[in-house]
């Protein structure tokens, strides 16, 4: 089964570039990603630019509406994701707990919908 691991956190809650902890934090991410690849779980994964770069689009009676900012102004924002191939939810939850940002924010685990 494929699972989307959505990484949420308050911007600035995790180690920031220029701090002493940042190097180790990035190293943890590299280690995690490498492990996911080696275990054959990695499908995709990225970090997102901060919400100051977000634009939200909707279409209402044929008219495109474009708004500066994220979908919802919440303290914790989507900051990145992994798409992983896991045997079951237990395995996906364990991977989620190993994502370095889980210490500073939260990771939502959602199974990918399969249309058949």
């Amino acid at each position, binding site marked *: *089964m494929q*699972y989307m691991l959505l990484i949420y956190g308050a911007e600035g809650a995790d180690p920031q570039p220029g701090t002493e902890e940042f190097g180790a934090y990035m190293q943890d991410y590299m280690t995690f990603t490498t492990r996911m690849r080696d275990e054959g779980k990695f499908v995709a994964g990225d970090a997102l630019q901060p919400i100051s770069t977000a634009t939200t689009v909707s279409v209402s009676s044929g008219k495109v509406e474009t708004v500066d900012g994220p979908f919802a102004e919440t303290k914790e924002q989507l900051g990145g994701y992994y798409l992983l191939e*896991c*045997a*079951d*939810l*237990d395995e*996906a*939850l364990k991977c989620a707990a190993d994502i370095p940002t889980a210490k500073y924010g939260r990771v939502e*685990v959602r*199974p990918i919908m399969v249309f*058949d």
Partner: protein
Amino acid sequence: MLPQSDISGQITRLIREDWGRLLAVLVSFGGDFALAEDSLQDAMVAALEHWPERGVPRDPDAWLITTARRKAVDRLRRARTAEDKADELTLWHWQHAPQEGDGRTLPDHRLELIFTCCHPALEEKSRVALTLRALGGLTTQEIASAFLDKPEAMAARLTRAKKKMQAAGIRFRLPDPEDLPERIEGVLQVIYLIFNEGYRSSSGALSRGDLAGEAIRLGRILVSCLPEHPEIKGLLALMLLGESRRLARSDGAGGYVPLETQNRARWDRGMIREGLDLVEVALRQGRAHPYTLQAAISALHAQAQDFASTDWAQIVALYSVLIHRQLNPVLWVNHAVAQSYASTPDQALRELEASGAAQHLAAYQPYHSCRADLLARIGQGDAALVAYDQAIALAQAPEERSFLISRRNRLATRAPSG
């Protein structure tokens, strides 16, 4: 041949007793919880239809499994669309997969079933409901009335939980060994919640004894499946010892009788013996879990001839260990009660006040009734009355309330003190 009603009663009992075991076997075929449950339900209806006429088959479990598998195949065929090939494998499993075991006894998959129902990815209340439904064989209606919920709301909750199991990939399997202690802890929490619900609530079609009895039955299943885990024995002992005093706790008119004035002849000696044995084994098996420590305290009460000869010093010591381990402010109240008999009410009151528990317990009824009792016993009647009023305002169960009011009135009619 038995009269009709006797047979259907017998069938219902038999199926309920074996429900968890049967369901676990069916879920193990295809992992589809909802389908397994629906098919077992179908098989039960078929049994109620055929057995009274043709008699109960020699091996009722085997009959029910075979019938449920056939019903599952029917359901799958009906749900399948012409171009849909994805269910071929599932269909094959239900039709042809050989049954495990030696053919005479059912394989026991109840442990997998308990862990699936108590999966941490499910909401707590759903875990409780699923466990009662799947392992206990209770109907949705019975579970709803036990929790004072509307049957439709409970049915919707169960459906939601089963959908999540299926869609989110909660597998029907034992947890990985490294996760086992934590997952056992989660299962025990569910069982203890069921027990406490039975202990507290007396309303609903399902009496308190039934839920408590159900929790004890689940505890027994778990002990037999995982004998090397002493904390499970600790919880089972704790429940048995608590349940052994059920009759003595009630005065017959719906009133509550505290431990102090209970008629100990009404305690269930069988449950006490079983509980004491389990505590002993659990304590020998390793570092005592909080459930085991609480059971050990309950065991000391069970062993005392009367209230006065209780080994209070030992109980104080056990509460101190528990407080150290759990940091739960509620424990300070129990500690104070024991201390008031082990040493003096005055000493107990001073320790309770120094503990800093008060700030967390302002809304906890037993904290105020304990203070009221201690204050009354050291002659501070007015302060005791105030504490009783606070306790009465917080009491939820009617029997609890009337007990506190009678205590308060008895104190108020005594000579006023300063």
